[in-house]
């Protein structure tokens, strides 16, 4: 019998710093909710709006898989591994922090707001060598399809991370129905609605709602509106 947990958009943590308007699906920074600590190895899901030219100065990370997906605008990224890059909407960035890395992230545009999802997963191995990658997403392949954008394998589609996790992203026509099969026994799926309205395993979800489902091997999906866009995060439910 599958189990689920529903996180409605308006129950997320919220911090408005002026230049940064952040919504946290799980406890982060000064937002602490013991009921919202993680979904399996998924520890952070931040939905950040960042004003033009503003951002996070150089700061360190370690032992975390950090995935950034810009939804609108562009990020200017620099890190201690020597990477200097711009990541725009339609791309994905991954950083395995491992033994330690420092980076800065700014809105690359002076007069346009940046909206990004930043997702942190616990790694399945501590103290790995830090690593950076970014890729352009195949937007056409996402039409009425959960297109894989992240996996545990360098040889598989999308970027790869140090965890048995798979992310898929899709944009759907109204009325489109499909089934998603969980990639690995013991994994659960956290669905995050980027836009539109959808029904997943009988639960109706609106923009920025999150639904975690586990103890199942597949989930049913239906798009209820024409602009439905959903990110599925297929993650181990057991912490390492």
């Amino acid at each position: 019998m599958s189990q689920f947990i529903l996180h409605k958009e308006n129950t997320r943590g919220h911090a408005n710093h002026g230049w940064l308007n952040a919504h946290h699906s799980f406890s982060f920074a000064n937002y602490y909710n013991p009921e919202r600590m993680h979904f399996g190895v998924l520890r952070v899901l931040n939905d950040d709006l960042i004003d033009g030219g503003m951002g996070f100065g150089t700061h360190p990370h370690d032992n975390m898989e950090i995935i950034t997906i810009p939804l609108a605008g562009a990020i200017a990224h620099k890190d201690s591994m020597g990477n200097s890059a711009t990541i725009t909407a339609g791309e994905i960035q991954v950083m395995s922090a491992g033994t330690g890395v420092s980076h800065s992230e700014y809105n690359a545009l002076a007069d346009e707001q940046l909206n990004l999802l930043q997702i942190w997963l616990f790694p399945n191995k501590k103290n790995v060598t830090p690593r950076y990658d970014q890729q352009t997403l195949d937007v056409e392949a996402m039409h009425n399809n959960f297109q894989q954008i992240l996996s545990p394998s360098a040889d598989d589609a999308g970027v790869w991370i140090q965890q048995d996790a798979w992310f898929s992203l899709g944009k759907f026509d109204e009325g489109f129905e499909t089934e998603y099969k969980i990639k690995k026994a013991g994994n659960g799926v956290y669905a995050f609605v980027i836009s539109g309205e959808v029904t997943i395993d009988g639960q109706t979800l609106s923009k920025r709602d999150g639904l975690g489902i586990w103890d199942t091997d597949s989930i049913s999906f239906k798009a209820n509106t024409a602009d439905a866009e959903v990110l599925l995060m297929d993650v181990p439910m057991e912490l390492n």
Partner: protein
Amino acid sequence: MQTTILYIGRDTEITIVMNRLLNARPEWKGICVCTDEEAVSICEEQKIDLVLLGNGIDQNCEEVLRAKLLSIKPNLKIIQHYGGGSGLLYGEIMGALG
């Protein structure tokens, strides 16, 4: 009452940041070191409420360190700190201290 938190991590830069973060809150006193020897010495000399294990501590070192610290203070709470910064720190400490 101030909570004393001992952080141990191998990366000097992250250790400096952790020291700043832990001592930014009046309710916390942070002591941040890079070596296990320093950590053991501090644990012997001072009241410690919580230990955060940071980056770069391999499994063997971690096992030895945990055993040493618990032999000094058997009820000491020792947790892994993930992320190397402010993002998870407050939640980790609140979760550990209850």
